[in-house]
Every structure is written in structure tokens, then in C-alpha cells.
């Protein structure tokens, strides 16, 4: 007679108190769900609605179709004639920013945290200071600077600007993580005759992998999502990144909203997918480090 005894807790009727608690939780949960999903659902609804359905104010279109996606993928509209090259630009710039930020930040974090280079603390503080300058404040002088360097309308201007913005936080996170590695490891490796570069490559990099994944993704998402700098630094249609192209839809009054929302939906998918796939790293590597209490 063990089975019924085991089932007992599940069959127990909830008390009024428990029902009340659950109801109150639902009373919070349902508005939170609605608030969170409305803008995203609205975008999704436009993406799957034919033009005449999109504006009817219905919760679900009468004839849902993927026709909008076909139009976007085939670039069959004036606003979309450079869709694929803009998608490609966004991807290349994001990956370049990710790789360069990782390179710059890992080298700096290793030097500051493990090699205890003289002045390393200073560099760390300057980097932190940069992190706290609101990015929009640096945008105007950055725009002029890129003009002076002759880099305007060149992808390098956006890549370098985004590396500048991404690396302070990247260095800080990597330094926090590498401070936690035991110094005995380095000493043992040096005892065994490892050179500094071997120490970096064979001991440091493998141990830092999880934080580096987090930092690389942080930089990639930052670059993929960036609007302001891309808007300022690039201007030719075939050089733009997707967010700026989306913003340009607003230029005309008769913009095809359903196509704009479809393009926006496609643009939002990769970062959302990356975020959920690497959530473990993001939560462990970044939110814990973002605010130290």
C-alpha cells in the first residue's frame, strides 16, 4: 500500500489561504505577461498579416501568411532593395566587434590581473571611467573624430567605435574573473619553464573560456543592436546596418509597416536566439558582475 500514500500530497485539497496566494500571484503575473508581450506580439502580428488585414485591429489575422517574409527575402520593395547586403553588414560588423573586443580585452585583463603590469590599475580605472560616460554623449565627438581620421562611411569607423564602447566593460568582467583564478597555477607553470606567452595560451585562455564566451556575446549583441553610432557614422544605403535601414522606413509617410515589422522581426531573431542559447553564460558571467553589492 505504498503507492496511495505517496500520492497523498498531490490529492490534498488546497486550503483557502493557498488559493488566495495563488490568485494574488496570478493577479501580478497576468498583467506582467500582457505588458511584456504586447509590443512583440504586435510586431509579429504585422509580420504575418497581409496588408489589408494588418490595420484591421484584430487579435489574429483572417488570412495569416508568410508572404511578407517572401517579399523581404526577395527584396521586392523600394525600402528593401539592399536587405541582404545590410543583413550581411550587420553580421560582419557584429562579429568583427566581438573578435576585436575579445582580443583587446583579454590581453588587457591578462596584463592587469595576472602580470600585475605597472600602471595596470590606472588603465583599469580609465576603462571604467569610459564605461560610465553615456554612449550618446561620446557619439557627437566620435562622429567628428572619425571624420578627421577619414573613416566616415567606412565599416571600420563603426567597428572601432563599438570596440571602444564594448571593451571597458569586457576588460572589467574579465579582470574580475581572472582575479579569482589561483596564482599558484601561474607560479607552477613558470616553475615548469613556461614562458609568459605559453602561460597565456595554455593556462590562462582555457580557464577563462566561460567568461570570454560571455564577453564575446556581449560585444556581438551590443554591435548588432547599435543604432545611434551606425546612424551617425554610415550613410550609403549599401553600407548601412539593419537597424538604420529600419529607422529609414520612417522617412516616408506611406511606409509599408507590415514589411518594416517583418524586417524588424527577422532582425530581432538572431540576438534573441543567441541570448536564450547562451543564457547560462550571460547570467553567470554578466549579471553577477554588473552590480557588485
Amino acid at each position, binding site marked *: 500500500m505504498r503507492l496511495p500514500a505517496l500520492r497523498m500530497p498531490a490529492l490534498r485539497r488546497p486550503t483557502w489561504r493557498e488559493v488566495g496566494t495563488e490568485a494574488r500571484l496570478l493577479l501580478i503575473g497576468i498583467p*506582467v505577461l500582457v505588458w511584456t508581450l504586447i509590443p512583440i506580439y504586435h510586431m509579429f502580428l504585422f509580420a504575418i498579416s497581409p496588408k489589408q488585414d494588418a490595420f484591421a485591429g484584430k487579435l489574429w489575422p483572417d488570412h495569416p501568411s508568410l508572404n511578407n517574409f517572401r517579399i523581404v527575402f526577395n527584396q521586392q520593395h523600394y525600402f528593401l532593395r539592399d536587405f541582404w547586403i545590410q543583413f550581411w553588414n550587420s553580421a560582419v560588423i557584429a562579429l568583427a566587434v566581438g573578435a576585436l573586443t575579445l582580443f583587446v580585452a583579454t590581453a588587457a585583463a591578462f596584463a592587469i590581473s595576472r602580470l600585475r603590469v*605597472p600602471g595596470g590599475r590606472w588603465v583599469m580605472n580609465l576603462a571604467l571611467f569610459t564605461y560610465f560616460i553615456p554612449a550618446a554623449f561620446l557619439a*557627437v565627438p566620435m562622429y567628428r573624430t572619425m571624420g578627421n581620421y577619414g573613416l566616415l562611411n567606412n565599416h571600420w569607423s563603426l567597428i*572601432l567605435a563599438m570596440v571602444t564602447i564594448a571593451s571597458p566593460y569586457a576588460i572589467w568582467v574579465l579582470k574580475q574573473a581572472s582575479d579569482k583564478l589561483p596564482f599558484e597555477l601561474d607560479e607552477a607553470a613558470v616553475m615548469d619553464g613556461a614562458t609568459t606567452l605559453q602561460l597565456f595560451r595554455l593556462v590562462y585562455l582555457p580557464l577563462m573560456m566561460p567568461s570570454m564566451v560571455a564577453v564575446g556575446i556581449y560585444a556581438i549583441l551590443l554591435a548588432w543592436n547599435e543604432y545611434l553610432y551606425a546612424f551617425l557614422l554610415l550613410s550609403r544605403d549599401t553600407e548601412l546596418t539593419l537597424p538604420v535601414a529600419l529607422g529609414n522606413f520612417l522617412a516616408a509617410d506611406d511606409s509599408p509597416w507590415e514589411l518594416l*515589422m517583418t524586417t524588424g522581426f527577422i532582425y530581432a531573431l538572431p540576438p*534573441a536566439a543567441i541570448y536564450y542559447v547562451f543564457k547560462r553564460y550571460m547570467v553567470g558571467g554578466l549579471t553577477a558582475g554588473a552590480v557588485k553589492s
Partner: protein
Amino acid sequence: MTTMTLSPGNAAVPRGPLWPRFTTPQVWGMVLLVPYVLVFLAFVVYPVGYGLWLARHPASYVALYNDPIFARAAVNTLIFLLVGINLKMLVALFLSGFFVQSRSWIRWLSVLFILPWAVPSIPTILSVRFMFNPEWGVVNNLIFKFTGEDGPNWLNDPSVALTMAILMHIWKSLPFWTLILMSGRLAISQDLFEAAEVDGASFWQKFRFVTWPSMQTLYLTCTLLSMIFTLGDFNSVYLLTGGGPADLTHVLATLGIRYIRLDRLDLAMASIVCALPLVLPLVYFMMKRLSR
């Protein structure tokens, strides 16, 4: 080589004639710092210096003082920070208490709740902008359906438009701060709550005497950090209202674009210099906290 350790001050064998005072690892350390230092010099020091040089004329500040849009933007920024951020952090504090409840449906909800943070802001902001379009937007469509009257011209009223921009900002960044405050709540020892339960503490007393004392530092840090981030929030305002109507919803982050359009870079820089007395204390405080 084998006798060398990494700690500075160790009597290591001096390497190389040019660097008699430094050990090999330290020389390598300096080499590895070079990429970041170059980035910093070329894209932080030079632009900031150049910007300050552009903003050197007192005439720029006089022009700024005489520009009603600047004063309006400063007020808008303060409203954005003081009302928007405090509202957001209070809601985040409340919701962090909701999301730490152990229910499977709340875990699923938290996965969806993070969506605004996980997706790029541009498409969702444009989606909201279309929702509130006076003629075609779904909101006014529904108002017309149920009341038979035309809805208001939402984004054409400066105070409504600014409120919407603040709500847009809250929508986007609420999940992030809720997540951080959740980690703060989860770090509190359960023993304390059990002890409070035994002593017959009410829900409010548990918050007042257990949760809040352990979270107040985190809460304050988050609020200040969020203020710094929000000062740079260009998208929520620019893509929703474009600074309009009649440039009345600009904030300091979007004002620079307006002055670039007017070809007055000196004013753009001067407006940022005017914001520094507000920004630098915040930055100083955050650096004190983070660089320990």
C-alpha cells in the same frame, strides 16, 4: 628563466638592456596593454579632448542659454531620470519578489519576461510607435470600435509623448534590473526568513527588517547605475518621438543630433559639458564602488 616568478618586486634576472628595471612578464604585460591603450587614446582621449576644445567659447554657452529647447531638454532629462528611474526600480524591486517565488509557471513567465531585454530595441520601439499612430494604429482603432470616437493624437502631445518614451525605456530595461535585484534577493539567507516566520513577522515586517536591509546597497547602486545608462538612452526617445512635437521631447542624449542637424557642433558639445556636473559625481561614486 626557471627561477622567475610573476610577482613584482621579486629579484628576477633583469632581461634585455633597454628595460633594466622590468621583468620579462612585466614587459609582456605592457605589450599586451598596448591594443587597449591605443584604442583609448585614439577613440576616447582624442574625441573627448577635441569635443572640449570645440566647446571652449563662452558664446556657445550663451547661445545654449538662449535656446529654449535646451532648457526643455534639461527638464525632460531630469523628469526621465527622477520619475522614470525611480518608478522602474520600485517596480523591479516588487517584481523581483514575485519572480523568486518557486512555481513552475512563474519560471516560464520569467523566460518570457526577459524578452524585451533580449530583443533589439529598434523594432519594438517602432512597433509601439505604430500602435499609437493616430490614424492607423491599433490603439485608436480599438478606441473607435468601442466608443465610436476618434482617439487622441498620442505622440503629438509633448507630455504624453515624453511619458510614452519613459514607459518605453521601462519596458526595455525592467527585465534586466529585475534580474539583478532577484539575484540580490536570492543571496539572502533563508534562515533569516525562517527565524522571522517563527517570530510571527508579517509580510511587510519581513520585507522591512530582513529583505530591505540586505538589499538597500544593491538597490542604491542599481538606481545610480541605471541613471547613468539612462542619460545615454537615445533610442527610446529618438525613435518613438523623434524629439517632437516641435522639439519638445528632446533629452540630453538626443539633443546632440539636433545640433548636428543645425550644424552647431559647438552647441552639441556645450550641452554635454553642461551635463557634466550631474554626470561626474555619479561616475565618481560608481567607480568608487566598482574598482575595489
